[in-house]
């Protein structure tokens, strides 16, 4: 449970560690809920002829989750690039 490596700094107080872990948990929860919603929109039509997942839908879900994680890494890299380039320096 250390999604983006938060909480790995040495010598911080108990309160700070708990607070960082909580923020991380909230972020994972948010990301899970967004992923749930996005992959639902990407993989399903809304006719609801059946309550079961079709084989195509199941396959689509698996790929969608996989791609979501890769997109996550990609966007994280872009943020670091932009951060280093100083474009966002003046903004707090």
């Amino acid at each position: 449970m250390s999604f983006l490596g938060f909480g790995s700094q040495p010598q911080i107080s108990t309160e700070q560690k708990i607070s960082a872990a909580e923020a991380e948990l909230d972020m994972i929860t948010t990301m899970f809920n967004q992923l749930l919603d996005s992959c639902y929109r990407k993989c399903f039509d809304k006719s609801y002829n059946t309550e079961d997942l079709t084989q195509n839908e199941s396959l689509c879900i698996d790929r969608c989750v996989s791609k979501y994680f890769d997109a996550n890494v990609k966007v994280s890299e872009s943020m670091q690039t932009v951060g280093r380039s100083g474009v966002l320096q003046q903004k707090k």
Partner: protein
Amino acid sequence: MDQLNYNEQQQFQKIVEQKQMADFMRLYTSLVDRCFNDCVNDFTSEKLTDRENSCLTKCAEKFLKHSERVGTRFQEQNQKLMSQMRQ
């Protein structure tokens, strides 16, 4: 989470439990809203039609199955990502 000692883990566990109730309720209310929006479009009466009732049931079951599958895959991918980050 490996960085938390036993005492801290106990504290954090309490926070996790508090959030689980809220998470469950969020899942529930969002499910109602999603299925209502997808299934209910006739406002000539104040009672749900048979077609709407059937659609709501299928929508709810389908989304819960979707949610379960995504949950499994999410954990797999999360573990893969973590093991890559530790290398």
